[in-house]
């Protein structure tokens, strides 16, 4: 087997990236258009409206597509937001890079100028970010803002009450290690900073800011989802004694439960977790109301056959016996009796199982008024372990007194039967002092469930990042406009510098910069990428056509002329609702001009977009391995190694 080489002198990769990004253009902005993805071979289709879901569903055969997908998924995994911005910018900047190549600008020049451009813009964006204390609710009550106490992040640790500066969110180092002559560098005090004494708490409490207003600022049109997030925050604040106001938000203590069939206004927030039970089991719950119960947690399956992970079962063990077994008791019966006795002995009422539970045992337990719930999410089990004091075990036979947790309440939340083949009841299980909150998402359109869930998590993480960064960027395209302005300013300065240069007087540092003769061209093309972003935003908002948008933006840029403050009218323009069906709610109209974006997420998305462009730009060859040379004979652009 040999390898085949495809030389990419034509930079197909950049074109592919642009094309891929174009797919997601309609997702930008608050008015998202859904897309249907249909699989011709299976006939399956799915409804999507986020960038990362599109990529997930596409069959990305080209290598560039895979690279893009990898980047997007990695970003999504860490930030849970901003993937659309990433892909959009990757698309427009790869077009910019392609244009640079057409103008015969060499690749190192493109790379250095583009990364310089992004560095400049990121720096300016950081310095123009808005502290969350300054994100005022609305003009009417901004005078009496809720600024109390010193505005700094306090990391709360309910378990230990440890020093806040040692919190889990402090993992971004404050100062880098400076290399000194010592071989051990002074890493010790640095080393201690990163330790996390309290393991499980990620809660961010925010003194001096009202989460509800912040949430509104980063809702990005998802008003319903964001109001659920605010509800979550309220409930979490109440649980840790902050009263009725929104003071804390912990995205790690949040789970979603999707229920198709009910209409969307049934979506709500509940403490603890919500599970679906059969009618039989639910009837047991009726008897369990309004009392505190004892709970045990099982990691793995609750069955006789189950063995822990890493245990290689030997199948060929045979029992040899010399007398007839008259009792007829199987091994499983023994096991069941054993487990049931253990559960009864320890007064267990509730068994939460991570895997599956044996049906027979579940029935048996039910007759003894013990509720067995299977397929619990690991996160939920973890929370129960923390709050009830239960120790998770792998085998039920392992259970002893100290493994049993206490203080669990069970209640029936809602009857969901009727819309499903099997009767089912939604049951709410709450442990004392839990911070865990469940958001129940309902919709009568089944295919919208995924979208709703994505939208909700997007909102939750936007709020999370807001509280984590404690800074926001002006949204609705204002930050992008700022970037365009900065780059144009640099282009202008650059031009003046070149004109003013006599060839001798230019200082060394400036000469190094001016050493890139195409800097201005690259900056302009980069800025055009951001212009494209804003204009697409305006187009999607339904306010104007793309051409009009460019005109408006250019006019804005002229009007600004040097000053870095931006007109609020501009962003209002972005959100002006003159679409006929009136897609914008009054809430959104009110909040126009008060739109903000997450700083870290946005800047990191830009950086990753540029990474992607650079990787593709600097690739000149595609090598396909494991190909029979005879297959590709006669293909003009292919060489065989």
């Amino acid at each position, binding site marked *: 087997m040999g390898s085949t080489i495809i030389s990419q002198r034509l930079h197909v990769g950049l074109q592919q990236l642009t094309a891929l990004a174009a797919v997601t253009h309609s997702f930008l902005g608050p008015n998202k258009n859904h897309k249907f993805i249909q699989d011709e071979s299976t006939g399956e289709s799915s409804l999507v409206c986020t960038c990362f879901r599109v990529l997930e569903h596409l069959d990305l055969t080209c290598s560039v597509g895979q690279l893009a997908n990898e980047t997007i998924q990695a970003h999504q995994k860490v930030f849970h937001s901003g993937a659309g911005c990433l892909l959009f910018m990757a698309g427009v900047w790869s077009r910019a890079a392609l244009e640079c190549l057409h103008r015969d600008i060499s690749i190192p020049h493109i790379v250095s100028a583009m990364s310089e451009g992004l560095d400049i813009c990121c720096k300016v964006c950081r310095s123009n970010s808005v502290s969350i204390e300054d994100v005022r609710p609305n003009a009417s009550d901004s005078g009496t803002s809720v600024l109390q106490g010193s505005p700094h992040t306090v990391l709360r640790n309910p378990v230990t009450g440890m020093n806040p500066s040692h919190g889990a969110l402090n993992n971004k180092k404050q100062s880098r290690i400076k290399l000194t002559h010592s071989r051990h560098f002074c890493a010790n005090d640095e080393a201690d900073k990163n330790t996390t004494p309290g393991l499980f708490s990620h809660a961010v409490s925010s003194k001096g800011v009202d989460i509800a207003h912040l949430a509104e600022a980063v809702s990005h049109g998802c008003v319903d989802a964001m109001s659920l997030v605010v509800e979550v925050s309220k409930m979490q604040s109440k649980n840790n004694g902050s009263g009725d106001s929104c003071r804390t938000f912990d995205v790690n203590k949040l789970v979603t439960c999707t229920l198709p069939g009910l209409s969307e206004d049934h979506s709500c927030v509940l403490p603890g977790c919500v599970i679906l039970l059969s009618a039989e089991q639910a009837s047991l719950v009726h008897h369990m109301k309004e009392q505190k119960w004892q709970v045990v947690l099982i990691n793995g399956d609750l069955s006789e056959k189950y063995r822990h992970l*890493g245990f290689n079962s030997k199948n060929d063990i045979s029992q040899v016996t010399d007398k007839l077994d008259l009792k007829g008791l199987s091994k499983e019966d023994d096991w069941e009796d054993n487990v049931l006795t253990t559960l009864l002995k320890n007064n267990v009422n509730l068994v939460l199982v991570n895997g599956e539970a044996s049906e027979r045992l579940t029935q048996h337990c039910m007759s003894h008024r013990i509720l067995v719930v299977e397929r619990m999410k690991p996160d939920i089990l973890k929370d129960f372990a923390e709050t009830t004091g239960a120790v998770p075990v792998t085998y039920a036979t392992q259970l002893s007194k100290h493994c049993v947790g206490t203080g669990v309440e069970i209640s029936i939340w809602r009857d969901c039967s009727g819309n499903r083949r099997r009767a089912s009841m939604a049951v709410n299980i709450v442990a004392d002092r839990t911070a865990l909150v469940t958001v129940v998402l309902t919709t009568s359109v089944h295919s919208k469930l995924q979208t709703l869930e994505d939208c909700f998590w997007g909102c939750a993480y936007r709020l999370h990042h807001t509280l984590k960064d404690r800074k926001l960027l002006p949204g609705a395209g204002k930050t992008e406009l700022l970037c365009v302005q900065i780059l144009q300013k640099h282009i202008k300065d650059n031009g003046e510098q070149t004109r003013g240069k006599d060839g001798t007087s230019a200082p060394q540092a400036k000469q190094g910069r001016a050493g890139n003769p195409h800097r201005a061209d690259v900056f302009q093309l980069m800025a055009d990428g951001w212009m494209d972003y804003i204009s697409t935003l305006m187009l999607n908002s339904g306010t104007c056509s793309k051409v009009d948008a460019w005109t408006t933006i250019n006019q804005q840029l002229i009007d600004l002329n040097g000053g870095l403050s931006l007109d609020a009218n501009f962003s209002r323009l972005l959100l002006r609702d003159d679409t006929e069906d009136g897609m914008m709610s009054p809430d959104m109209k009110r909040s126009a001009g008060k739109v903000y974006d997450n700083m870290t997420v946005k800047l990191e998305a830009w950086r990753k977009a540029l990474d992607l462009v650079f990787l593709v730009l600097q690739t000149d060859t595609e*090598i396909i391995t494991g190909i029979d040379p005879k297959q590709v004979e006669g293909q003009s652009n292919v060489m065989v190694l």
Partner: protein
Amino acid sequence: MSRVTKKASSVCTDSPLSMSEVCQKMTLMRQILTSCFGPNGRLKQVHNNVGGHVLTTSTSTSLLQAVSSSEPLLKLITASILNHLSRFSDCGLYTGILCFSLIDHVQKSGLRPSVAIKINKQLLEVCTSFLNQEDCGCKVNVDFNSCQSLVTLARSVISSKPACVLTEGEQQHISTLAVHAFLLTVPCGDTPGSPDRVRLGKTVTVSIEGQFVLDSAVFPGLLVNVPDMQLHPTDSERTRRGPGPFRLALFTVSLSGDLSEFGEGSLEVHSGAPDPEDLILDELLKLGEQAVTDQVEVFMCQRVIHPVLQHYLRRHGVLVVERLGIALIEPIVQMTGAQAVALYQTPIPPEAYGQVKGCCVRTVGSREMLHLLPPREPAPAVCTMVLCHRNDTMLNELKAVCQRAEHVLRLTLRDPVALLGGGCTETHMAAYISNKGTTEAAKAALSLGVSQSQYLLGLNGFCSSLEAVALALVHDGETGLVDLSYAHHWSVPQGEAIHSGTVPQGEAIHSGTVPQGEAIHSGTVAQGEAIHSGTVAQGEAIHSGTVPQGEAIHSGTVAQGEAIHSGTVPQGEAVQRGDGDEVPATCGCGLVERSARPGLEWTPLNTRYPSRSAPLVVGKDTPPQLRVLDSFTAKLNALQVAVEMANLVLDIRYVIQDVN
């Protein structure tokens, strides 16, 4: 039915190097390697034909492992490069480029292979002895009293791979970390037990995708991955308990309690007899009891630990970590002094216990990991390098590059010297050999039994091959220059007009009659390339209307001494003097500064110039900050491998392939 098809007879290829197909493939391979070379190199996307994972890289190790060729000669060369890399990690592309270049030059020169081989061998010896000379002009000492040269060495490795996509600040951060990790693995004082032997510690790399590069860090000791559920409240309590040292037990045998070690075959159990699983569990619990009575506080296993045993140990306040994986066992043994126990049926021997100073939970990126602190200072230190990057592709490249940097730094302990990077070593060495070979040609030719002209031809090929390596650093229509005094390598960016000419600065071309303000071109001027037009008659102006603006030469700039060329400059005089703007401020490695050395003259690389004096050695009394340094040990070996491989390939007369 044993065999349906008849066994085909072997295929024999006579003088494979003369086959055009072989040559074509070798050229292709050479192009691939050349285009990958250096910080401005091009990346390659490698994937299989069924759409597997896409590898984006310009690193020789990853590339050569992924790409296979059907050509035996190429396989041979690839294998030898990979072998070199397995020993030195660095200079893989260098080996390949030099090797292919040598073969190519011999073929072009028309020398008989046997003659060329002899000459190459002799010249290799000259090179080796030159590099080993005390006063060799391309060598600098690595000063262990400061980190400067070590960091430069690391940064040269790290910045050489564009697929890492690092900003300058990030490059500096990672280079510093690489040096930090390296220094942590150098033990202070003697290794206990063997006073005259130093045993280096280990660096374990943990890579985390999706985080900021600047979150990468180095920790003394080990970071162990513990899945979420394993961090039981009791464990986290343990991690906070006062200062150690803690006693540690380490097992390599699976403690999962299964019967796998009985091997194949069926087992018959009497119904009255106890269950074998229970028996094993009893055995394991006995082990646990011993651990608890022996006051073990950290209990680790390479594989799975039975949950009941885990439960028992945790109940007694022992920190339990399972599924460490084989890679971590040796570093743990080295750090804690524990012996890995491979048996659970017998009690743990007391000498098998190791020690850790403490443990804590550390949040790195999005992961929570258990940090084991080394027990005492002078022990062979083990450290963990946490590498973070924005996506997987770049992270993989970064990981490879950091491991390479670590190896390169370790090689300095054997030879505390480094070579000038940026192509300067190659151009300098080529100039030295060219000079030495030319002056001693008669003697050398005699001793080799070849004619003097053959020797000079071989010499020229060898020097050109060395320069070809330096030239490979130059991409994107840049031009490689060499200065005539120190023979260092200078690269001029695209778009700047480069010419050779004897014209002093500020003066127009010596084609006297050309009216000022008029463009002078040879009709074939290639974009951004060095121009030697041998046909332009003196005084004749040729206007090429097709030269795009800004790319070629306009006489408007001629007056400023920038664009000057001429067709009639005699060879050997084709040099440029002065400080025309186009030549960068320093040479490739940063040792020669233009401002500090006025009167330098340049000529494009790989142009023939008649014998010249031996290159001067730059005085290193007050060396300017060197930008690029290469590993001495790796490059020396790479040079040897390349020349020997080239000789071997040239020597191959037949290729016999079994096609069954």
